[in-house]
């Protein structure tokens, strides 16, 4: 049954239909016939996560409500909340700048405030739903092993989604006012990514500097931190108490979060149209002159392609920031390396797999840009060079950039231990090549500006890339201790790649 046109309910129906179809299209990469397979994959992933959760949080389900428990829950919730804010900021920025239907809405005689209010609420719902597949297995295990009181954790997730969206709306609008429409798009996306990474990295950096380990647990269980933590009666523990199912904190946390979201809707929705109009004016970029001595030397097709990739990457600060954001995760291992330089090799055993993992992820992003994010595919496809030649040049561009970033780190390791450096170099090369292969098998034509959406355009490719990187990182980690034992994780990583190849849409067609 359809609601009366122009009402908030009618807009909500319209929005939910768009969101649902967009979501289905994203998870199936636009092929609805895959829906059943993808659904089975999602169920398998959630089941697998339950096993992981059983191992990680199962033993702690019956923990007493003391400072240690409250601190651990609060920190974990804060960590997740940062990621939710990051996700919500990304959605809000997209809502301001995506022009798909704003012209129609703003030109129509309906009260657009209702739609924008509904749109903000939808972002809150989406942010919450995105967190659930990762949080639910942990909460389920806690309920199964610790009792129904942990049901409150679901309430906390809902409250966190609402509050994260409210804060993200506030932050984005503040950026709009301070920086203007032109700069906000870039800055908001960088801020979103930094918020997502900063908390994790910050905790690791403090742990390394204080305890010489990358483990956050060491910091959270340390006596000085527990001594600094507020008393058990503090309201700062209320979110943690809400997760533990205590009624008053749960109601208070939910009420506060919904009040924040309501305030964001009431204050921002009426101005949303103005922000969108301002953002629309950003369409024509300002004139940027680039003087370079063109036509200086003879370029082979391969050289021309390689140089083009590097120039495009260098000149796009947004893409550069999005790509290099993954390098932030290298800060803790680099710090470990620096601290453990004159000590034993235990630090290196931790650093090597982190580098391998980061190389895989970085190569995946760069490979997507080079292979799928080709802005002039017709031009490249009509060039008089064999297609494998084009692919070769693009792979060289990707691996060249990866080598440029990781070589100094491998050299630093080599000074401490040539054997570890050799393993790191091999692991980085293999992980980067594997991620590039995944991006090649799952290639699809897209604009470079859609880089942030690449991870949702094919979930399968994203998971394959991530699990392959994890597999090669594990192989490198084990190889530092024993080469023969490293065969097992290497075989697993190869199986991941084989599975990705079989399931990839291009596996059966020539390029």
């Amino acid at each position, binding site marked *: 049954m359809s609601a009366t046109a122009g009402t908030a309910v009618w807009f909500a129906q319209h929005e939910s239909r768009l969101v649902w179809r967009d979501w289905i299209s994203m998870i199936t990469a636009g092929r609805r016939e895959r829906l059943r397979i993808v659904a089975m994959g999602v169920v398998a992933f959630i089941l697998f996560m339950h096993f992981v959760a059983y191992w990680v949080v199962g033993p702690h389900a019956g923990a007493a409500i003391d400072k240690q428990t409250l601190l651990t829950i609060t920190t974990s919730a804060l960590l997740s909340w940062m990621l939710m804010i990051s996700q919500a900021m990304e959605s809000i920025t997209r809502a301001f700048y995506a022009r798909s239907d704003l012209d129609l809405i703003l030109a129509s005689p309906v009260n657009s405030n209702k739609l924008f209010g509904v749109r903000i609420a939808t972002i809150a719902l989406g942010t919450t739903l995105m967190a659930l597949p990762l949080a639910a297995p942990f909460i389920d295990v806690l309920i199964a092993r610790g009792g129904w009181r942990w049901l409150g954790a679901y309430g906390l997730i809902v409250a966190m989604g609402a509050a994260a969206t409210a804060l993200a709306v506030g932050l984005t609008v503040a950026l709009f006012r301070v920086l203007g429409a032109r700069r906000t798009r870039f800055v908001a996306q960088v801020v979103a990514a930094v918020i997502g990474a900063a908390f994790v990295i910050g905790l690791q950096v403090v742990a390394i500097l204080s305890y010489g380990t990358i483990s956050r647990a060491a910091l959270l269980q340390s006596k000085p931190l527990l001594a600094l933590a507020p008393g058990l009666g503090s309201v700062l523990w209320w979110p943690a108490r809400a997760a533990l199912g205590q009624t008053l904190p749960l109601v208070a946390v939910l009420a506060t979060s919904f009040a924040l979201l309501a305030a964001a809707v009431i204050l921002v929705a009426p101005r949303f149209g103005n922000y969108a109009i301002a953002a629309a004016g950003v369409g024509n970029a300002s004139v940027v*002159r*680039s003087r370079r001595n063109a036509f*200086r*030397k003879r370029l082979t097709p391969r050289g021309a*392609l390689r140089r083009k990739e590097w120039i495009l990457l260098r000149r796009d600060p947004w893409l550069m920031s999005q790509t290099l954001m993954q390098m932030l995760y290298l800060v803790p291992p680099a710090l470990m390396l620096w601290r453990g330089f004159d000590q034993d090799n235990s630090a290196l055993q931790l650093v090597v797999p982190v580098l391998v993992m980061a190389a895989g992820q970085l190569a995946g992003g760069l490979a997507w840009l080079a292979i799928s994010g080709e802005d*002039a595919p017709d031009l490249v496809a009509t060039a008089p060079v064999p297609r494998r030649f084009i692919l070769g040049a693009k792979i060289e561009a990707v691996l060249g950039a990866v080598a440029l970033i990781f070589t100094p780190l491998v050299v630093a390791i080599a000074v401490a231990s040539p054997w570890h450096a050799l393993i790191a170099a091999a692991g980085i090369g293999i992980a980067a090549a594997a991620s590039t292969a995944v991006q090649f098998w799952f290639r699809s034509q897209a604009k470079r500006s859609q880089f942030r959406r690449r991870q949702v355009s094919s979930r399968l490719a994203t998971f394959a890339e991530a699990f392959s990187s994890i597999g090669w990182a594990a192989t490198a980690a084990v190889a530092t201790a024993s080469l023969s034992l490293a065969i097992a994780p290497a075989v697993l990583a190869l199986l991941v790649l084989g599975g990705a190849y079989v399931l990839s849409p291009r596996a059966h067609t020539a390029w």
Partner: protein
Amino acid sequence: MQPIAPPKPAALAIQGLVKRFDRPAVDGLELTVRTGEFYALVGPNGAGKTTTLRMIAGLLRPDAGSIHIGGIDALADPVAAKQIVAWVSDEPMIYDKLTPREYLEFVSGLWGVEPALAANRAETLLDWLDLAPHADERCESFSKGMRQKIALAGALVHEPRVIILDEPLTGLDAGSSRQVKNVLRERARSGGTIVMTTHILEVAERMADRIGIIAHGKLIAEGTLEELRRQAGTHAHTDARDGGSLEETFLALVAEPAQAA
């Protein structure tokens, strides 16, 4: 006795070309374009014009049939065929973060043009198309017209023998449109072969040596405007017989297969 020169191969020879998606898009198309000819391909929406051009340019593989470009079998040796062909689509695909000069350098690199020669040609094209004042500005701030002119310059910088254009005038203002038409005319005059689709029948009427009308994936009529008028006159009672415009001729010719379908 003077030796007899071998006959020059057609710039483009297509035989029995077939491409099916959900339904046949191109259905046994036969087409020959002579060297140095300006050939316009017109037809209603969905007639198979773009699909045909994309197969010629090597962007789509046909299900059946053959394509010879300058005597080269484009399906057997696509790299050799691409060396003498340029493709310009209705939606100019260029790189926002490159300048026009850098874009032309990139295209020259892909086609292996000597740097000094490429630099000369690039300067000439930038002048012709009024792009010289913007040659060192990044393309991200350019209008559709400027982007289309850059794409055209990219197509010409490697001096192709055959230029394939799909609706190159769509969305251009009168000034840009005239510049593009002048460059194409000049190219045809200097011996280049041009195959172009257009919805603007007036353009086909004024610029093309021959016009092909395509409907339902088949070439239903072909010739000069005069020849098309005669063909239309035999098909239907229409003003097209006696000096009618291409529009009237086109509608008369397209109407019959549509009725038959």
